[in-house]
């Protein structure tokens, strides 16, 4: 049960990264719009979006597979943590009471915090993460 739930959490959070990556590559105009709006335009160049998208897809697949876990799990937590950091006003004020106004509130952003914390679970409980390729291949990751 424990290993199975960790596998499910890896698959669901890994697929979210794949989804983000595919959007960056397949619909860069959407990703650039998000970057302009929430990331202060930091990653608005189309070339950057394509590179980031490819990296996110690769990372998501590796997390799903449980491969190179010493690198991929922390990397996933960092990516998801950064995503949360950029929308912190919406996380702290999901109802639009004091940091964002009612019209610009994005309550659907709040689950990003849950996803970030969920990505910490395979790190915290790695010894139970037996349904991973690292473990199956006896890799030291």
């Amino acid at each position, binding site marked *: *049960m*424990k290993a*199975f*739930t*960790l596998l*499910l*959490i890896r698959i*669901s*959070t890994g*697929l*979210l990264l794949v*989804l983000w990556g*595919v*959007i960056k590559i*397949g619909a860069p105009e959407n990703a650039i719009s998000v970057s302009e709006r929430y990331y202060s335009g930091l990653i608005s160049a189309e070339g950057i979006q394509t590179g980031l998208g490819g990296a996110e897809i690769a990372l998501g697949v590796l997390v799903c597979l449980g491969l190179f876990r010493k690198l991929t799990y922390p990397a996933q937590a960092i990516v998801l943590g950064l995503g949360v950091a950029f929308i912190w006003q919406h996380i702290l004020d*999901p*109802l639009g009471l004091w940091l964002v106004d009612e019209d610009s509130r994005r*309550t*659907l*952003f*709040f*689950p*990003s*915090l*849950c*996803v970030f*914390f*969920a990505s*910490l*679970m395979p*790190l*915290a*409980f790695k010894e139970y993460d037996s349904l991973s390729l690292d473990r199956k291949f006896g890799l030291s990751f």
Partner: protein
Amino acid sequence: MKAITLLLLRISTGVVLMLWGVFRIQSPESGAGLGERFGYPGFLSAENMQMGIGVAETALGVAVILGLLRKISYPLQMIVLLVGALLIWKHIADPFGLFLFAEDEAPRRTFFPSLCLFVATLVMMAFKEDDTLSVDHKLGLPF
């Protein structure tokens, strides 16, 4: 580390339930509208029903955050989140609108994390013995 990550997961998923609940209480007409839009059974769309569900969701969210009555509150949260995910299953199964949506429909990709929330609750249930930063555990309750 283990207990802290479980606490963080409890707080964040519990707050999601509270947010849903507060929305239903504050504007039951919006909840009813959502019900009709995403195909809730008709009786759930009534405004009075939305108020009742909102209060129950808020209370459940508080219990999960505190780690109280976990034998009941965690499975209940799991069911609520599962039902929520099932009602938007098309958006989760086909986030790019490739095969489940008509041409004039658009998938909502922001719905995908609903799946993570449901799975996160399963993790909380599976690792309950490590969930030591819970009121149940502190008070020695058999839950």
